[in-house]
């Protein structure tokens, strides 16, 4: 009685807390401090180095996060007391980094159209569209080029047109608007050029022989490879009419290796002010549509195939519930997912429980040996087992040929290629993978049931079946119900076995527009949408699905746990 009073006494509790603080937060040994400081120093060193790198790359968001994490870690370990914090800090940080942030990111992606055609930001799309709009005129002569520097230190192209091998024509020019001396023009006063140098120069090998036309000097190979020159050469566009690269005449641009130049022209022009592209041939204006994530004309024509990622509100969720093409397959998949998860839990639990009872009988010799063997499927990596099962389920595999002894090729059971057998195959394989876990926890729970209970039941004349049904099973369920629920949640999302064993297959009727496989559970179907469906990846839709699955499993688990609490009260 006095003990209970002391426990409920708030003052006493505080005193105990104080004692604890004295115990854990007191003066630690010098040894401990030194180890702690050494370890913390390593972490801090790494952290400071990472912070410097982030400053270098101007990643301010990551920088602040990184510094905050570092400060939290230092605070947690340098302060006196707060022992739980010292244990929890790394775990919580990793939880945030690898779980919580991922959930939030998925939730965000669910509201975007991120996918195959909407892969990057709008800026990326503009870059791509600009690159696309520059059309390389493959009919124009391809001229070997020497990149030269003029007296204003501006880069220019010195090119030679070898269409007529015997009588090459020489051109020179740079970007006049950027300050280059020469606008693009043919060199007519050939006496000013060491022509023989250029003629021999169909490759870049001997450009060290500078050309002396109006004081230009050739870039040495070393200069060409300097980073700033590489980007300058790659971006250099020399207007052919000497005025504007946007004109119909176009411009000269180097090939990627900068060994030659060729006439290039824009088939659409970008207007940075309005963020629009205008098609040169007919004047159609394509403006950025922030709802579809494409450059589109008034009539809805797209400039390029490449879009960008935009936020599209609830559209992905509307698609899941509204798209008739999805609705049919989804209903089937959901039904099978529940069947699969429930079937897996039920079958593994029944087998595990039965084996646990069997091997709980003290009359069996070598029980420990048997029990150890039982656990082997659990100890084996699941993906390895799945592959072995896949091999065994093959038409010519161990199960058909050796176990079932089918030798007539016409009567082989199509384990992995027909929907019915494939579902049984998945459940069988999952039974193999899952029963040891159930066996383990059932054995543990059984052993926790006091022997007196069984003894008194026997004395009262209860049959073994009555003992099991009325005493042991209810007691077991109290402990095991939460584990069964989490096992259901796990199997509901058991991607590994489906992916490895059948890949979601067999694929169904080819006349369906959305192709779902016969053993596809929700999560494997989501994977197909995310990475390999229709037009390609649709991460937005897949994320929306994931969020729904998360909500479904979350609420299912919450309700179930509530109900198990009720079970607990019964006893």
């Amino acid at each position: 009685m006095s003990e209970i009073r002391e426990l409920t006494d708030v003052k006493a509790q505080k005193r105990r807390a104080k004692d604890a603080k004295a115990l854990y937060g007191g003066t630690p040994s010098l040894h401990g401090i030194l180890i702690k400081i050494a370890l913390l120093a390593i972490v801090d060193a790494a952290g400071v180095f990472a912070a410097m790198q982030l400053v270098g790359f101007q990643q301010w968001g990551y920088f602040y996060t990184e510094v905050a994490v570092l400060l939290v870690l230092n605070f947690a370990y340098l302060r006196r007391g707060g022992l739980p914090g010292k244990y929890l800090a790394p775990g919580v940080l990793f939880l945030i980094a690898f779980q919580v942030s991922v959930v939030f990111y998925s939730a965000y992606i669910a509201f975007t159209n991120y996918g195959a055609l909407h892969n990057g930001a709008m800026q990326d799309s503009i870059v791509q569209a600009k690159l696309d709009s520059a059309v390389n005129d493959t009919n124009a002569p391809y001229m070997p080029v020497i990149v030269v520097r003029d007296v204003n230190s501006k880069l220019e192209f010195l090119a030679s047109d070898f269409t007529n091998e015997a009588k090459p024509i020489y051109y020179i020019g740079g970007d006049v608007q950027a300050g280059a001396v020469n606008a693009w023009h043919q060199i007519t006063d050939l006496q000013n050029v060491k022509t023989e140098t250029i003629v021999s120069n169909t490759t870049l090998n001997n450009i060290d022989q500078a050309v002396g036309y109006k004081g230009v000097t050739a870039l040495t190979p070393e200069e060409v490879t300097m980073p700033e020159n590489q980007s300058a050469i790659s971006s250099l566009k020399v207007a052919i009419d000497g005025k504007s690269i946007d004109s119909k005449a176009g411009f000269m641009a180097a090939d990627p290796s900068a060994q030659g130049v060729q006439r290039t022209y824009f088939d659409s022009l970008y207007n940075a002010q309005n963020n629009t592209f205008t098609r040169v041939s007919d004047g159609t204006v394509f403006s950025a549509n922030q709802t579809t994530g494409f450059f589109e004309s008034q009539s809805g024509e797209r400039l390029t195939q490449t879009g960008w990622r935009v936020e599209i509100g609830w559209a992905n969720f509307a698609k899941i519930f509204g798209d008739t093409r999805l609705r049919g397959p989804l209903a089937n998949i959901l039904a099978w997912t529940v069947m699969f998860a429930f079937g897996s839990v039920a079958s593994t639990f029944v087998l595990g429980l039965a084996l646990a009872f069997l091997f709980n009988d003290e009359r069996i010799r070598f029980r420990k040996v048997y029990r150890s063997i039982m656990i082997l499927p659990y100890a084996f990596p699941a993906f390895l087992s799945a592959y072995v099962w896949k091999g065994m389920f093959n038409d010519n595999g161990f199960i058909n040929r050796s176990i079932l002894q089918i030798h007539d090729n016409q009567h082989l059971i199509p384990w992995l290629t027909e929907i019915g057998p494939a579902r049984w195959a998945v459940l069988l394989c999952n039974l193999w993978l899952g029963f040891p876990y159930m066996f383990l926890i059932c054995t543990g729970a059984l052993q926790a049931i006091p022997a007196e209970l069984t003894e008194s039941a026997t004395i009262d004349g209860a049959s073994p079946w009555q003992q099991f049904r009325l005493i042991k099973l209810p007691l077991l369920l109290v402990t095991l119900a939460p584990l069964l629920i989490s096992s259901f949640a796990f199997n509901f999302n058991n991607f590994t076995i489906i992916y490895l064993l059948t890949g979601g297959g067999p694929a169904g009727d080819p006349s369906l527009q959305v192709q779902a496989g016969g053993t596809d559970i929700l999560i494997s179907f989501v994977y197909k949408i995310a990475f390999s469906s229709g037009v390609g990846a649709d991460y937005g839709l897949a994320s929306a699905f994931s969020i729904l699955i998360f909500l479904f499993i979350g609420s299912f688990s919450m309700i179930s746990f509530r109900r198990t609490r009720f079970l607990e009260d019964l006893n």
Partner: protein
Amino acid sequence: MKISKRGVSAAIATVATGALLALGTPAIAANQTVTLWVDSGTATAIGKEVKAFGAKNGITVNVVTKDFGTLRAAAITAIPTGNGPDILSGAHDWTGKLVGAGVIAPVNLGANAKSFSSSVLSGFQVGGKLYGVPGWTENIALVYNKKFTSTPTTNLKTAVANGDVEVGFDKNNGDPYHFSVFSTSFGLSQYKRANGTWTTTIGMGGANGAKYAAWLASAKGGKALTSGLGWDQLNGQLQDGVVKYWVTGPWAVGALQGEHSYKNAAGATVKSTPMKASDIGVASFPSVGGSTVHQFSGVRGYWESVKVPGSDKAVSVGKVLDFLAGPVAQLASYNNSKNTPANQVALSKVADPIVKAFGQAGVNAYPMASFVFQDTTWSKIGLAEAGLIAGKGDSNPAKYWQDAMTALQTVIDAS
């Protein structure tokens, strides 16, 4: 001894601030490393040579080997973040998806442009613009064993019906790439063609489609086309004369010269007798349905990341790309891996009779289309073909086939 907590904190703070101050303006090394993402086959074909080329030109070439099946998806995810490759390799029919994802840049082949046939280049074009550098070409042919077959058949239809022909295809998913030999012989075409390129209209339906469906439905059973034959099984059967013909490509040439374990008619596992290179016969496909066979050809090649043009390593990457397009690298790829060079200059120097025979068998081949929805087309057609062979459409093969093609066209039109 007691160490002051404050002292320790202060020390750490001092060190940290000092380090940050010492940093001042962070010096980031100029990056002249050119990163290639390639599959293991490409790495074997040109990996060593491209590194040597880089070393000679002061460029560090970093060849990263990736799984062929996941390379494209990985590049699409990585390039926008700036962590992707500068150059990636793959099959030409990836081009559409790569362009759609906005991760590759148009290229100018420069001096090498005239060394490629327009058919090969068309594989890398989207909207008339060239995006990739062709590396090597491959197409399927009728491969036979000269030990058992002196003259290749001119009647493929009967050969198939007699069970003389083997094709590797999945029971459920089919293999429309290999089956193009049969489908095009019925006058079908994956998409209708106009001006030497693919349109987006599926060309597999209609009256010819019905004929093809009827033939597929009749070509099933133990005798004709058998699904699910493994690589060793396919090799072994041809090596030992169990079947006479194999619909396959140049990638089988090496394997046919090695030993394989396979199951014989009695179901026992036996070891095959390796073929000599001189015993490998390569023939053109006779037509099953009466029309000219236009099997697919594939062109392996390289693309430049969209981040490269205008960047501080644009020229270095361009030089590597130029090397890959040129005859030196393409001949090296032939020498290392028996790949048929796409570059005509390199091709003219190839003497291997098998490589040449594959080239001759592929004169009518079309490069696979590379639309952004291409995967859907493959999977739908394959599913329908496999379904018919498995007898799923037996009640009405023509309808089963046409329904699938209609669904496919609907999906394409919606994209």
